[in-house]
């Protein structure tokens, strides 16, 4: 049970961090600091250059050499890490704006925990904001796929006959669609000036629409077997109307499958969003998403020289692992209940 608590705690923590990206990150993810491209992660010290101990952790400012490529710490001034400081304004939720950040340092010091990218933008802030885009896309696409999948699967299982055949053949077709190429085609047909929100919604819609087929098949199977149960036939015998039977006896049977599917689909769709953004089909610059951030690793020099640019990959693995752990937890729970 402690494992379950740990997994659920980790997931809740991750989502809180992502949801409160504006608060948790020290900088605006799109602000460029052009004097600091590809600066390495800031080192947080408690001992200064002379070996003296300081209670408040601090950072030193980074200065680059003449070529602009090699950074070193300027130990002449300390910049203590402050909690709940004022910084760039952000929107926490629609309608709620703030400029209070969980941590930060006074200018001209900078605390880039995961370093900076080629435009001098803070990678830590971008990972949080990027994860918000990627995870939200995953969640919304899953919701969309499950709603459509459950509705069509129930319909097919309950009505059988011609309706069943049409829905299931459609599911086959959807499963066979090479959706990556479909997306390329859809993007090419749309106007160039697609704003960030529209691009995001398009991504979610395409992922959701393509992803309904598998859950719908599973739901159909459950509905078919549920229909044959004695208590369902008894209810029918007592003259219960079909909608009542569906709501009261059949649909509740599918909840387990739907939840397991959700656990599987969310990380899968997050990865799909990452793939698409990696290929330049997702949200555009200057907005961040985990995929578009990983896209810069396609360049050999970034791959070879700046290890901190792998930060979005670490974030992605963490989120996906947490979801997979949750799914296996669900399986174990189901097995326990069954036995």
């Amino acid at each position, binding site marked *: 049970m402690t494992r379950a608590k740990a997994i659920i705690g980790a997931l809740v923590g991750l989502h809180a961090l992502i949801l409160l990206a504006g608060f948790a990150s020290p900088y605006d993810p799109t602000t460029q600091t052009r004097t600091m491209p590809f600066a390495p992660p800031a080192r947080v010290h408690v001992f200064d250059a002379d070996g003296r101990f300081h209670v408040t952790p601090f950072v030193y400012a980074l200065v680059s050499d003449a*070529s602009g490529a090699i950074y070193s710490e300027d130990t002449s001034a300390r910049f203590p890490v402050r909690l709940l400081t004022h910084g760039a304004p952000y929107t926490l939720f629609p309608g709620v704006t703030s400029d209070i950040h969980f941590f930060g340092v006074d200018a001209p010091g900078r605390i880039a925990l995961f370093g900076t990218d080629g435009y001098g933008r803070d990678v830590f802030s971008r990972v949080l904001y990027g994860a918000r885009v990627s995870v939200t896309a995953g969640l919304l696409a899953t919701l969309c796929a499950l709603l459509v999948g459950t509705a069509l699967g129930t319909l097919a299982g309950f009505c059988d006959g011609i309706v069943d055949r049409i829905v299931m053949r459609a599911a086959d077709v959807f499963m066979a669609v090479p959706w990556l190429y479909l997306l390329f085609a859809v993007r090419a047909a749309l106007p160039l000036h697609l704003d960030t929100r529209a691009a995001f919604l398009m991504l979610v819609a395409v992922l959701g629409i393509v992803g309904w087929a598998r859950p719908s098949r599973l739901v159909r199977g459950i509905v078919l077997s549920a229909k044959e149960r004695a208590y369902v036939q008894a209810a029918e015998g007592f003259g219960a109307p079909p909608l009542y039977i569906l709501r009261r006896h059949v649909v509740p049977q599918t909840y387990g499958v739907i939840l397991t599917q959700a656990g599987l689909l969310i990380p899968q769709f997050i990865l799909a969003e990452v793939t698409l953004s990696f290929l330049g089909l997702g949200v555009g*610059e200057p907005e961040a998403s985990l995929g578009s951030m990983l896209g810069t690793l396609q360049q050999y*020099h970034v791959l070879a020289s700046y290890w901190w640019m792998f930060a979005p990959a670490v974030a992605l693995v963490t989120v996906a692992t947490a979801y997979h752990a949750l799914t296996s937890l669900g399986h174990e729970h189901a097995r326990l209940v069954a036995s």
Partner: protein
Amino acid sequence: MRLIASCLAAIVFSALPLRAATPPAPIAAGEELLLQGPDAGRHGGRLVVALRAEPRTLNPAVAIDAVSREVIGRMGGDLIHINRQTQLTEPALASGWTRSKDGREYTLTLRKGVRFSDGHPFDADDVLFTFRVMQDERLGSSNRELLIVGGKPVDVKKVGQYSVRVSLAQPYAAAERIFDSIAILPRHLLERAYADGTLQNRWTPATTPSSIAGLGPYRLKEYVAGQRLVLERNPYYWKADSGKKRLPYIDELVFLFTGNEDAQVIRFQNGESDVLGRAGADNFNLLVKDQNARRFQLADLGPSLEYNFLFFNLNDLSRKNLPQVAARQRWFTDLNFRRAVSRAIDREGIARLVYRGRGVPLWGNVSPGNRLWQNTLLPHPPRSVAEARAILKTAGYSWRGDGALLDRQAQRVEFTIATSATSAQRTEMATLIQADLKELGMDVRVVPIEFRALLERVFESFDYDASVFGLGGGDADPNGEMNVWMSSGSNHLWHLGQSSPATPWEAEIDRLMQQQLVALDARERKRLYDRVQTIIAEQQPFIFLATPNVLVGARSDLANFRPSVLDPYTLWNVDQLYFRPQGTSGGR
């Protein structure tokens, strides 16, 4: 890592068949050799070069793509050559030439005793045949446009077995330069194919080596599709060093096909290739930092002749159904709008971030790398958002409460910059511009699209707002830029397909470019071209951004490696390269 690299290198090299190299032919009596350079090198060795793609053809008459031309350049000889280091013309297959007083006739004396790489002698008939082929409309040679002067093809006549006369319809400045890189074709091998109309299909990389011949330092030896193309020494090459040792020094030239710049750099870094044609600043810095850097000689040659720029769609859209783009054109056609954009762009930032400091900001079309032609009096106004806002304000623009820029009709100023998805650098420039223009309240979106789709939008459909492109980098002479600045030019990107100049300043540029084309005095040409540069800088049809430095490298024991800022950057003097014996000190 190093071990794996050397194993890989060993595998690559062991796959190349080892056969005895063809020795240079002994110098014949009466053979008029071109003696070059005091440096006495030594014969032998194999030079490996990684190419981004496979050459499509080895036929000089139909080659268009850069990779094919790079290979063909090593297999062909021209009459008059542009020295890539001095940027001046020098004798090649023509040992000398005279110009008539009116500047319309050139008489070229050809070198005697020269033989093609198959041993067949070369004379004036080969020159006549070459020009007939290059000027043939059916073949669509990329050299054809160059050979039209004053609206008429240049006329080439035989005067004697070793002499030809070239007549032009009008005097033409720098006429000698048109002969550069036009490879002379062997009439004895291609005349029949030309008569049959099958010439354009001849000489693919897969052609039997013995049926291809040229006058360059190398000839075809072997081609393995998808992997490599091997050239061997042309034993009859017409150049020798001061000690009368026949060039080229290096026995074989191997071109490997790699795919992209990153793969080229990795091969070079691992020692699998000996020369790095041209690298981006990021990859170059990576090599500089490489702990094995002693194995390379790396050179930063300073600004290239290329210019990168932002431009707006000023095309005539009356026949296109693009109401949205047409609506946004009322900003783009406004000179004050373009000036404000130019003032707000952080060019220094582009040079620093995109080129990692290995590039320079630009305010005009002629880069500082082109010392002969740059107008040094052009102003270089520094970035000023306040100035840019003042320009917009006087032009009637205003700002909303949230800082968004509105035009006179209270419309939000928003547009898209389309860039090529395969060019990370130009997309980076656009992203920096996006942030710069946000400070003016403009909502700019950057859309990287597939390169061919981008070309289709810019050249055909005109369905775009703005884009970032790069041009130039060929010849230093302004004549190479005619197709960009002439209002009817095929690269007049901002407004294509003009039957007559759309604006008075474009008309003036047309006039000036025509005048410099026929002016024979170099100072007069410079004065005219300076004026062209001034008009372009004032009118800002292109908003110039920056030019990258030319960054190249070679194995440290490669001697005579003298890269140039003109294309081809590294292999222009391939005939003089040689490998220093091990143990002797390096340094150029």
